[in-house]
Structure formats: structure tokens, C-alpha cells
């Protein structure tokens, strides 16, 4: 990147960049934001972007329209998505052909193309403006303030939205103690799962004596089914850099590490470029903004181990060792990376910090409830209509996230459960839709806030199988260091496997519960201590489903393969032979125009016949 990079030496220099950017962009009539989040990338947003660039050159719009490739705008289900500013018109399911139309009719002609905007299925009407779409309407974007709104590659645009002004305010006005006092007053708590107050953590880092200290950003994002941190790193990397800069300044560390999982190559690439740019601007390196404070950041890439999200295992992994957790105490703030005092924070936590410093604790604390201040980002996925990344004020009703923002269940099926907190969390039911989404309320239900995974499940999900799924995950990921986790999760998994294969006994249920509680109390690190949560919550809230498996040997959701059979309804079957031809194991026989039959000995319950039968003749029993 051969960019012009002035070295900034003061608040005035920063202000000059902001003013210049705003003056430069003022001349454009429109800004077109093309979402470049992972979801839209896999929906081929690159083709839309290149068609847009081509058309706007052809139409001579270079001086009137600014094109921005942003991070995730949030509504991944409808990608590729595009926003036209300043009107805030949201176009979805874009294609190269559609974007050409948008250039001609909207950018040049001044007319919104209603057909390409969001369709509200309830009313059958299109909603053109982003602010009116229910998915966006109830969101409050603090951590995601820039994500999907700015060019992730432009430090100038980040600065124009008061980026790095938080650091300037810290060094010019607040001082080191002022930063952690502000954070304490804001009520910000760690977004990585445990919810520890960030200001208190930074204060202990400040108070800890030591020549060399470190600040570490936890971007391991291990919850399988969540991608909030990834969205922030890809959409607004400077907010994380500035958060770390503030952390380093406060505790007195001149070096930071970001530990990113290996599965996120795009995040690594964008973050590396942002770090380079920040160095070129003098926002990393020696004597930042003339403050006398020096700081730099290095990226470390993980290698695929869930336990490395646990902070002490993460430290071992940064040191190049096996990612096994360390005994606490000593805590990382006392003796962390390479034996030095270390403060570890999650990506989203760090992304919140700069704006809290700029806008003040009181502003931040005006969102949220009780001891849960501010907002939380969730990755809404599973059987939900509008899956994507959302940021909501804490204290919002669970039901509002699922039904108002998420649009309810896909294909109009009934809602069954929502799972938060991934392998450490729990499943809640339709009776919990009124629960307030905050740290305390979710824990009281046996679920946890977690890092932000929120998986919605419809009636076709078997809760016993879900518990087995998570147990399989943690058993696979257990580092093997302590016995309760290594052996205990294996035993639990064996019992669950027995139950889903139709060989469970009633006494298994008590055995599961007892063993789960023992592991919770005796495992060494958070992985083992929380591993039984999905099992315990499903046992508690879906006991009837467990009982159906062990007593009646049936799976009410028709998921567990050993307990179901596929049958063809002879009344409905027209003998079209399609299923027989497509069955991968030749389990279906029959003559043309005669009802077919399935040999359940051969049938593998793969579902191919069901998804292809045009007459709905195949049923699961």
C-alpha cells in the first residue's frame, strides 16, 4: 500500500486529518457502501463491487459518488447488501445486473428502486430506508459503530469518526488513572464471556509493578457458531488497535499481542494492514502523538484449539507452547505472558473502549440495565429468518431479538429453543422469551451471555442430540490436562451417545446430572467447568425429550437416526420413481406408477428422498 502517510505528532494533527477527510467527502453527492463481510463475500459481493466500479466510470460519476467496501453490515441472510448514503437506502440480494440499475435509476435518476429493497413479509411491502427495517431499528451500535459504515482500510475515515481521539484525550486530559476510572464508571464488562469489569482489570494492571508488561487481545473466538469478533476485526480494525493502545498506555505496557484464530485469514490480513497504516501515521511506534508513550502490536496466529480461548492457555500458545491452561493464581495480571504482568481482553471489549473515552462513562452507562451496561453484539444464526450480526442494548427481551430483529423462525416453523454461550452456555425455551438479556438474568436461567453466539432452533432440532453435539465438541477439545474434564466429558458423551442411539436407560438421566455437577465443581479451567452447561440446561428444560428417548425409545424431533424409519405413504406416492433413482444406497424399490417402498434395513436416513419427493409422500416415523 503506497499511501501518503503523514506522521501525526499532536491532537491538532489528528484534527487536521479529520477536517481534511470531511471536507474531501463533502463534495460527493452519494456514498455507496458495499458490504465486504464474510457472508457477503461468499455471496459474491466482489462481482457486485466490480460491476459498480465499472458502471460508475462509464457514467462519469467519479467526482460525485464515493464507493466504499465495508465490513459486515449485519444482515448476512440477504447478502450481498449495499447501502446508498446519505439517504440510508438498503438494497439486498444484489447482483451485478441490479447494481447497474441502481447506478442508473437511483444515483443518476434520483429514484429508489423499491423492488430491490427489503421486503417486509408481514405486510408485503418494501421498506427502503435502513432505519425503518425491523432488523436494524432496535439495534444500538457502539462496538459496531463503524462496522459496515466505513471503509475498513481507511485510517482517515476512522479518524473522521473521532477515531484515535480517545487516545488523544487519554494522554492530554485523563491520564493513566483517568482512563481506568472512566471505564469503571462506565460499567463496561468483558465481552469474552466472563463479564469481568474492564476498568477494575486495567486498574490492577496499572498497580502491578513490573518493567515489562503486556496487553493481549483475545481474538480466538472459539464458540463454533459465532463471528462477532471476526466482523469487528474485518470491519473496523482500528477500533481494536486504539483499544489496545489505550490499554497499553493505562497499564504501562509498550507491547501488545493479538491472538487470532487460524480460521480467520481475512481478519489477519486486514488487521495487519491496519497495523502497518497506524505505524505509518505514527499512531503505533515511538512517542505516539507527542505523548512520550511508545507502543507496538504483533499478531500471533492460533492453530486450531478451542481451549486457547481460555486466557492462560492462550498465553501458553502465544509463547509457542501447547495451549494448556495454567493454574491460577498467579493471575495473568500478576504473572502472564513470558512471566510478565499481562492484561487480556476480548476484541469487542477493546472496540468499546475508545468511544467510551471520547463520549464519556455516563453516555455508555445510559444503555443497559442493572450491572450490565452498554450493548452486546450477537451472531444470530440457526433456524432464524434474518441471520446476521446484531448489537442490542443489554436488557432487551430475548423474544425481541429472535422475533423482531431476527424475523422469527425460517419457513414459518414453530420456535423451540435458543442457545447462547456456545459450548459453555445453555439452551432456553419459549418460556424464556421474556427474559432480559443481561449477564445476571441469563446466568440465573443456567445459560450464559457468553461471547455472543446465539443459535435459534426450530421444532426439528432434537435437544438430546444438541447436548450430545456440544459434549462431543468439548470432549474433542479438552486439552487433557485435568481428569474431570478429560475423563468426565468422555463418560458423559458415551452416555449421551447411548441415549441417542436408542440404548439409553432411565437411570442414565440421574447419572448424567450427577456427573455433570461433579465436573463443574472440579475441573481446572473454564472449559471443563462450563462444559456441562448445555447438558444441564437441556436436562432441565427438555426433560420430556430425554424421557421419550430413554423410556419410549423415540425421538420426538425425528432426528436421531436409530429411532426413526422412513416410510412412503402409498396414498400419496404416484410411482414417479424419482426417489428410487436418487437413493444413494438403493433402498427404495417399486414399479412405475406403483407406490414405492423403502427397505429400512438398507435406508441410511440421509433425507435425499424427502427433499426430492414432489408429492410429500415420504414420512418419518
Amino acid at each position, binding site marked *: 500500500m503506497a499511501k501518503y502517510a503523514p506522521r501525526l505528532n499532536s491532537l491538532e494533527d489528528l484534527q487536521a486529518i479529520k477536517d481534511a477527510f470531511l471536507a474531501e467527502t463533502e463534495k460527493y453527492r452519494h456514498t455507496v457502501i458495499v458490504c465486504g463481510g464474510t*457472508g457477503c463475500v461468499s455471496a459474491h459481493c466482489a462481482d457486485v463491487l466490480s460491476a459498480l466500479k465499472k458502471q460508475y466510470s462509464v457514467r462519469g460519476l467519479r467526482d460525485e459518488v464515493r464507493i466504499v467496501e465495508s465490513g459486515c453490515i449485519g444482515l448476512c441472510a440477504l447478502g450481498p447488501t449495499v447501502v446508498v448514503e446519505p439517504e440510508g437506502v438498503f438494497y439486498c440480494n444484489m447482483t451485478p445486473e441490479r447494481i447497474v440499475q441502481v447506478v442508473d435509476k437511483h444515483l443518476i435518476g434520483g429514484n429508489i428502486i423499491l423492488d430491490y429493497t427489503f421486503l417486509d413479509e408481514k405486510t408485503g411491502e418494501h421498506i427502503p430506508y435502513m432505519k425503518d427495517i425491523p432488523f436494524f431499528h432496535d439495534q444500538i451500535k457502539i462496538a459496531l459503530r463503524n462496522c459496515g459504515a466505513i471503509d475498513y482500510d481507511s485510517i482517515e475515515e476512522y479518524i473522521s469518526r473521532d477515531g484515535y481521539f480517545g487516545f488523544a484525550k487519554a494522554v492530554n486530559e485523563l491520564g493513566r488513572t483517568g482512563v481506568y476510572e472512566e471505564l469503571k464508571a462506565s460499567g463496561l464488562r468483558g465481552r469474552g464471556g466472563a463479564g469481568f469489569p474492564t476498568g477494575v482489570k486495567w486498574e490492577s494492571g496499572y498497580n502491578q509493578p513490573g518493567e515489562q508488561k503486556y496487553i493481549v487481545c483475545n481474538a480466538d473466538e472459539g*464458540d*463454533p457458531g459465532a463471528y462477532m469478533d471476526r466482523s469487528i476485526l474485518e470491519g473496523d480494525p482500528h477500533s481494536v488497535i486504539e483499544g489496545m493502545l489505550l490499554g497499553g498506555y493505562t497499564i504501562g505496557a509498550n507491547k501488545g499481542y493479538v491472538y487470532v484464530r487460524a*480460521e480467520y485469514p481475512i481478519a489477519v490480513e486486514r488487521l495487519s494492514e491496519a497495523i502497518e497504516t497506524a505505524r505509518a501515521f505514527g499512531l503505533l511506534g515511538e512517542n505516539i502523538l507527542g505523548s512520550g508513550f511508545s507502543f507496538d502490536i504483533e499478531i500471533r496466529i492460533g492453530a486450531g484449539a478451542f481451549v486457547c480461548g481460555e486466557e492462560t492457555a492462550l498465553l501458553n500458545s502465544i509463547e509457542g507452547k501447547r495451549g494448556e491452561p495454567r493454574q491460577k493464581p498467579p493471575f495473568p495480571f500478576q504473572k502472564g505472558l513470558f512471566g510478565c504482568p499481562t492484561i487480556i481482553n476480548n476484541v469487542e471489549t477493546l472496540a468499546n473502549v475508545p468511544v467510551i473515552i471520547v463520549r464519556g462513562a455516563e453516555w455508555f452507562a445510559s444503555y443497559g440495565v442493572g450491572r450490565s451496561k452498554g450493548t452486546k453484539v450477537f451472531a444470530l*444464526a440457526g433456524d432464524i429468518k434474518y441471520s446476521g*450480526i446484531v448489537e442490542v442494548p443489554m436488557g432487551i427481551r430475548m423474544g425481541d431479538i429472535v422475533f423482531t430483529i431476527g424475523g422469527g423462525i425460517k419457513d414459518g416453523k414453530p420456535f423451540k429453543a435458543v442457545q447462547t454461550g456456545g459450548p459453555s452456555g445453555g439452551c432456553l425455551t419459549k418460556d424464556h422469551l421474556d427474559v432480559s438479556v443481561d449477564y445476571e438474568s441469563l446466568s440465573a436461567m443456567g445459560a450464559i451471555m457468553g461471547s455472543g453466539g446465539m443459535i435459534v432452533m426450530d421444532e426439528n432440532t432434537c435437544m438430546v442430540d444438541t447436548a450430545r453435539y456440544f459434549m462431543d465438541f468439548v470432549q474433542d477439545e479438552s486439552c487433557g490436562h485435568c481428569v474431570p474434564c478429560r475423563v468426565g466429558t468422555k463418560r458423559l458423551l458415551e452416555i449421551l451417545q447411548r441415549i441417542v442411539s436408542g440404548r439409553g436407560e432411565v437411570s442414565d438421566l440421574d447419572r448424567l446430572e450427577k456427573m455433570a455437577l461433579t465436573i463443574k465443581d472440579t475441573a481446572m479451567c473454564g472449559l471443563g467447568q462450563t462444559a456441562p452447561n448445555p447438558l444441564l440446561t437441556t436436562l432441565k428444560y427438555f426433560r420430556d425429550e430425554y424421557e421419550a428417548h430413554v423410556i419410549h425409545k423415540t425421538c420426538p424431533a425425528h432426528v436421531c437416526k436409530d429411532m426413526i424409519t422412513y416410510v412412503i405413504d402409498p396414498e400419496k406416492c404416484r410411482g414417479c420413481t424419482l426417489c428410487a433413482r436418487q437413493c444413494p444406497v438403493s433402498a427404495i424399490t417399486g414399479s412405475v406408477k406403483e407406490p414405492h417402498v423403502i427397505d429400512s434395513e438398507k435406508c441410511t436416513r440421509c433425507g435425499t428422498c424427502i427433499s426430492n419427493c414432489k408429492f410429500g409422500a415420504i414420512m418419518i416415523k
Partner: protein
Amino acid sequence: MSECSTSCPAAEDPTLQRVRRIAESYRGKEGSLIQALHAVQSAYGYLPLEVQKIVSETLDIPLPTVSGVVTFYSFFSTEPHGKHNIRICLGTACYVRGGVRVVDRLEEILGCKVGHTTADGMFTFEIARCIGACGLAPAISIDDKVYANVNPDEIPQILASYYKAEEANA
């Protein structure tokens, strides 16, 4: 540098020499074993014992420590991989949205089990725990490309494009 010690026989395979050079660039950097292994694996394809030995000698880290790290992390492989890496996501979102059916179908089509490489060496087929496309589940990735909302019936078509590209290259 022309003089070679015994640990660097003149006849050493050029790719192994390259491994040595890559590992050398990490010498003296605190705690960089995992980063070095990443770089070496992306150059050599996998991390067999002979490669681990070179890393161990070059970075002056005992071989058991190197092996311990290689076996701990799922990203490191001691077996060679196929030309293309298929990773089927079985993260929660993809599991809930029918990822297992994608796995079943792939096993059937490729004629090999998860964790193995096809007989023709084209594909290695693995399970991933979330590739960050949860909003578009079920998802799979082939090398760096993500395929979202995968319908098991579309898989033959997807794979065909790789065989076609292979033929075009040949």
C-alpha cells in the same frame, strides 16, 4: 553460505532446504514456534517427522517439544494433504442447519471418510468448527473459497468445477 554442517547434507532435498531457511527466519524470536510451524507447513504442505527435526534443530527447541506442539493443534498435520482442502463446517449453526447431511453426501461422493484424502489425491476432506459464515449455514470451504447455503444435491457440481480446472491445467 556455502559451508554445510553435517545436519545439512549437500544432497538435501531443495524443499527441505527451503524449510530450513524458513525456520531460520524465526530463530531468536521469542515464542515463535507455532508461527514458524505455520510458515513451514504452508511451504511443505504438512509436517512429517523429518521436517519437525529441521525445525527443532534450527530453532534449538527439543524435538519432543516440537512434536508436542504439532500434535496438540488441529491445524498441523503430519500426513500429506490432497491438492484441495475441503472443510465442512460442523459449527453449531451449520450443525443445526443440516451440516451432517453434507458430510454424509461428501463421504459417499468422494468414497472416503472424514479426515482422509481421496485416492486420486485431489481432495482432503475435514471437519471445521465454524468458518464464520454462520449466517449462511450450512457452509463448506474448499481451500480459501467459502460456499454458503450448501444443498447436498449441489455438491457434485461444486466438485466438478475443480476437476474441470485440473483438466484445463493439465
